[in-house]
């Protein structure tokens, strides 16, 4: 299967680590590949997405289209061309 080329939506709090871009094009057959492609283009993103032992941080969720990868195949979730990946971290602002 050829790796798909698709867009990763970058949420506002992380855009500063991705040259301010709202979306980045990456290649990958799986979510793990695609995020690997992302963090190799933007190494500063890595520590905000992953812990030191390589696990996705618990306050960051990754979606393929509208499904949470925790309920698909996590990093092994396969990707099709045209899929979109969203990174959704928790934000707390509301009152201040």
């Amino acid at each position, binding site marked *: 299967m050829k790796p798909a080329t698709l867009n990763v939506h970058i949420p506002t709090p992380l855009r500063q680590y991705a040259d301010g871009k709202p979306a980045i094009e990456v290649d990958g057959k799986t979510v793990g590949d695609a995020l690997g492609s992302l963090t190799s283009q933007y190494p500063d993103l890595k520590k905000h997405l992953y812990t030191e032992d390589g696990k996705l*941080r*618990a306050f960051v*969720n990754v979606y393929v289209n509208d499904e949470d990868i925790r309920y698909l195949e996590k990093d092994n979730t396969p990707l099709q061309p045209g899929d979109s990946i969203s990174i*959704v971290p928790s*934000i*707390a602002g509301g*009152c*201040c």
Partner: protein
Amino acid sequence: MPELNDMATVTDAPNTTSTLSNEEVLRYSRHLIMPEVGIEGQQKLKAARVLCIGTGGLGSPLALYLAAAGVGTIGLVDFDVVDVTNLQRQIIHATPDVGRKKLDSAAEKLSGINPYVILKKFETRLSSQNALDIFRDFDIVVDGTDNFPTRYLVNDACVLTGKPNVYGSIFRFEGQASVFATKEGPCYRCLYPEPPPPGLVPSCAEGGVLGILPGLVGVIQATEAIKLILGKGEPLVGRLLLVDALGMKFRELKLRKNPDCPACGTHPTVTKLIDYEQFCGIRGQEAPAKPSTGIPEMPVEELKRRIDAGNAPFILDVREPHEYQICNLGGKLIPLGELPKRYQELDPEQEMVVHCKMGGRSAKAVDFLQKSGFKNVINLAGGINAWATSVDPKMPKY
């Protein structure tokens, strides 16, 4: 997806106390002539008791619309005082209210819009000691808070008391909204089992927020609360709405109830409220940052003395370029996020004072530089805001 029947049990059947007077019938006529509301729906609204946590950015539009819609009892939780920087977005407060308790300011406006609403004020910080008692007398809780510990507290208290949690949050120009803690649906911890480490996600004071954004998201929250009360439409249960105000894009992601969730799963381990500050890795974290061990500080008066004496230290400014344009001390600008890439531009032997707006970001910068071998770095206590307060009142504060 939970059935609407679950939602319809949120309020009791209309009783005599929720009968509408002739004046109320006239007031709500635009609701009553719609089949989705009608007399029965309006009576449900009157019988409903909604608790609004926070009367700030999200709380303002939310409470205003709930009152206008005729929600019978509105609870307000806030311990804060109106500040002029709030007026850019907290539209329930006006210029004459600066310095006043937010609760009083909010209650006055809500009574003005709708004198039929019963207002219950809680002038307190929501805590593990009081949350369950406060929640007990309400049917729906709407979370308009601004920090992670309180969000987890609200969530857990909603799960424990069986009240739906209408969630909304914002950052700069993006927002999220959902309805958590219904019987069949997920809770906040299903989505985010753990909070981010402190300091990773800036507050509005540090990150900024588009004034209209809490308006958009707060009214979405009010809409969801009203739908839950009426038992009409499809609530955002199991759905995370993402709002991008700049692109004016609304996206939706699926949320699932996590069977292993410590709060609402099949074998919950959260059976009582905990120390949420500890859970979020914070103790007393509020801007400006309190000095932590190993972060030396210099008061702004001393920096002023040194500059006047011709003996100024090197000044490093770790704010963002657009902040520098508002006001600056002539320091070298390296935004905090760029420091790891650019610190080699600095002399590690040189005496250096680091500042930001209030002292929080610069404390992190000092910590980083110390760990990178800088011998003589000091944090400017209170940041450029303290300078504008104590040294140069002509400097704009922001």
